[in-house]
């Protein structure tokens, strides 16, 4: 079993009205000091061992992300059935 985490984010220069709105809302709730907020997608994909990272990349290109306005990155996190999906400490996007 393989575990992929996919991060889909708006391309540079693409306007993100949802992020803007959330940012304003936080302002109004009294949270100061926020410089930017963007909302993207976080996709958790579990596959059997036959699915390669390359195949996952293709899935993103074809379906999971919209290449015209979105970028994505993929993080293969775990390869055994035991590792749990959402660790609090997960290293996130930086691989």
């Amino acid at each position: 079993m393989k575990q992929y985490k996919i991060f889909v984010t708006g391309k540079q220069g693409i306007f993100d009205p949802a992020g803007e709105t959330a940012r304003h809302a936080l302002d109004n709730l009294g949270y100061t000091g926020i410089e930017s907020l963007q909302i993207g997608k976080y996709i958790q994909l579990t596959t059997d061992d036959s699915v390669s990272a390359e195949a996952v990349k293709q899935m993103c290109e074809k379906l999971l992300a919209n290449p015209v306005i979105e970028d994505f990155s993929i993080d293969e996190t775990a390869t055994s059935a035991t590792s749990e999906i959402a660790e609090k400490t997960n290293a996130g996007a930086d691989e």
Partner: protein
Amino acid sequence: MSEDTKIPTPVADSIETLDPELAAQVAIQLGLTAEEYQGVIDVQGRVPSLTELYIYSLMWSEHCSYKHSKKQLRNFSSEGEHVLQGPGENAGVISVGDGWAVAFKMESHNHPSAIEPYEGAATGVGGIIRDIFTMGARPIACMDSLRFGTLDKPRQRYLFEGAVAGIGGYGNCLGVPTVGGEVYFEEAYEGNCLINAFAIGLMREENITRAVGSGPGNLVVLIGSSTGRDGIGGASVLASQEFDEAAENKRPAVQVGDPFEEKLLIEVCLELLKRGLFVALGDLGAAGLTSSASEMASRGGVGIDIDVRKVPQRESAMQPFEIMVSESQERMLAVVKPEDFAAVEQVCKRWSVACTAIGTITDTGRFVVRDSSLTAGNDIVADMPAEMLATSAPEYDPPMLRPAYLDELQSEDLSWLSRENKSAAVLSDELLSLLASANICSREWIWRQYDHQVQSNTVLLPGADAAVVRISDTGRGGSTNRGLAMSTDCNGRYCYLDPYVGAQIALAESARNLACVGAAPSAITDCLNFGNPEKPEVFYTFHKAILGLSDACKYYGIPVISGNVSFYNESFGNAIYPTPAVGMVGVVDDISQVVTGAFKQQGDTIILVGQTEDELGGSEYLKVMYDKVTGSPPALDLELEGDVQKVVREAVRDGILQSAHDCSEGGIAVTLAECCIVGGIGAQIDLDDELPAVTSLFSESQSRIVVSVNDEQVNELINRLQQAQVPYSVIGETGGDNLSIEGKIELSLVKITEVYRESLEQLVKQR
């Protein structure tokens, strides 16, 4: 440029102009021709600055200047006693009685949608809605006119699904109902889909607002969203070039719509207009601030002075030209008296909408752009004569050539079609194939995704021949029991086979759709979608279509009050079908009198108003059964068409009819099937017309409407038909669980309903 055109004197003493050689190169890259660039130098009296060059290239692009279409468009007449505003403003306006007026317009967003269908279509809706409330009207309805390739291609399904979702996503959020539209699927649109959006708004006559800047010293105020690099060069790059692989790489940052911001803008602008706090209001559309500011100045014969650094920016390090040409959505430009600015700010604040004074109106006649981050004295980055910039783009008389295919196809002998002797079983199967065709089957899959009822004025749900909305300022102001009927139509196949007749049929069909709900045409808007106008064959079809449409409009006295031209709808060298879409609006005097196409009860008499001829050229039958697009389209007799409409319209108004539904694609067989399906009642028909069966059933002759009447009214209707000297035939009776057409068709209601209702969704979901 004529000798006596006076160019106001420049403001700038020094401005950083480009190196002459470089400027000429950049001009070409930006899409200007060498002659056009020379024109820029003539108007400026010098080599332009970088910002100026960008501005000219956009203002003189096809999209903004209509340089290839302007002369042709003069064929249209906007004369009419109830016309309050013709073409030239953001939208046309007509009076609809009792002091109410409506603004409406249709516009294309084809090229952006071909790149990103959801956002492209969504921002198309956003743009047309801004054109409406800019005029002071509250948007009350939308329609969409769509063209795609065939749904067996995954990319076409993607475009179609995305565009429909985008139209819904935007309009639904605004609370503007999308009440109707049209859609066709054909190979000709495969590389270049068409997304035309229509919007209409309601206002009191006295509230009409225009985008005319005036009053030197007044503030120029930008309201709404921040400015980013979205769609930079969008208008000129996309809409003025053919769409091919290179264009995909030229992809500018796609514009993303923010319908929430637009909703706030509607409320803010209408409130400010009502309180008289705007001197002028315009929206930022194609070419952004550049076009909106220069047009406002030019219309008012004033100058305008803008500081780009005051423009709220959402990205860092934006160049002045980027700020000037950005096509970020949901922005409005207003002229405000200095003493009113605080009040304007207050209203904007209440709605959390940004509002910034970015410049002033001047009496210099110059359009001046400053960048206050530069040193004082050297801060002017563009200084142009506003009027010349907005109005002196070149006007072309492109060469025309009658395409060779026209004679070839028009003269094609189709008599073999009707010689075949087909059994009722075969004909019934053929009817099922037509009912399943993507061009005929129910569009419910589309309109279910559109909020078509918000504002509580929708009289007829989508699916009727024309949409009808009540004239009412729901929950805010007055309400009436009168309505607005609207329809959008164009059979591109007919226009391909004969652009003159095809365009006339588009108008006739719209008007016929209105007649079916008891409305007469008040005015139209149009959206002329064509290929590359620099190709003589394409331009010929454009010319002919305009002539056809304008001749027919003049014949009926229907003014053309607004419109839009979209050229360069080509991919890999192939143009789309000429597609002059018509958006028509008429008034319903009493909404309680409207009828639908649905058969209402057993035992009503069914009458065909009009007459079927042998006209299978360009028909859906020919396409579906034989995969052919050929022959001459049906003929259109303007007088007969007018008479048919009149008699039906009046019969609807006088409450004589139970149902009325026009014959269009698929012929009378499809029309009858639709009346049965929507009404849930069968019909027993005998088409005793001495035509071969195939012709009788599937011919697409114009000027035909199928009506049903109850026993008490049959004679009255027949009297009226005879008096009007309109051909008609009594063809049967409603009732039963089948659609049976004597000797030709025998199908159960259940079957035709299933095929008709489920086809589109199945086509979308196929893999």
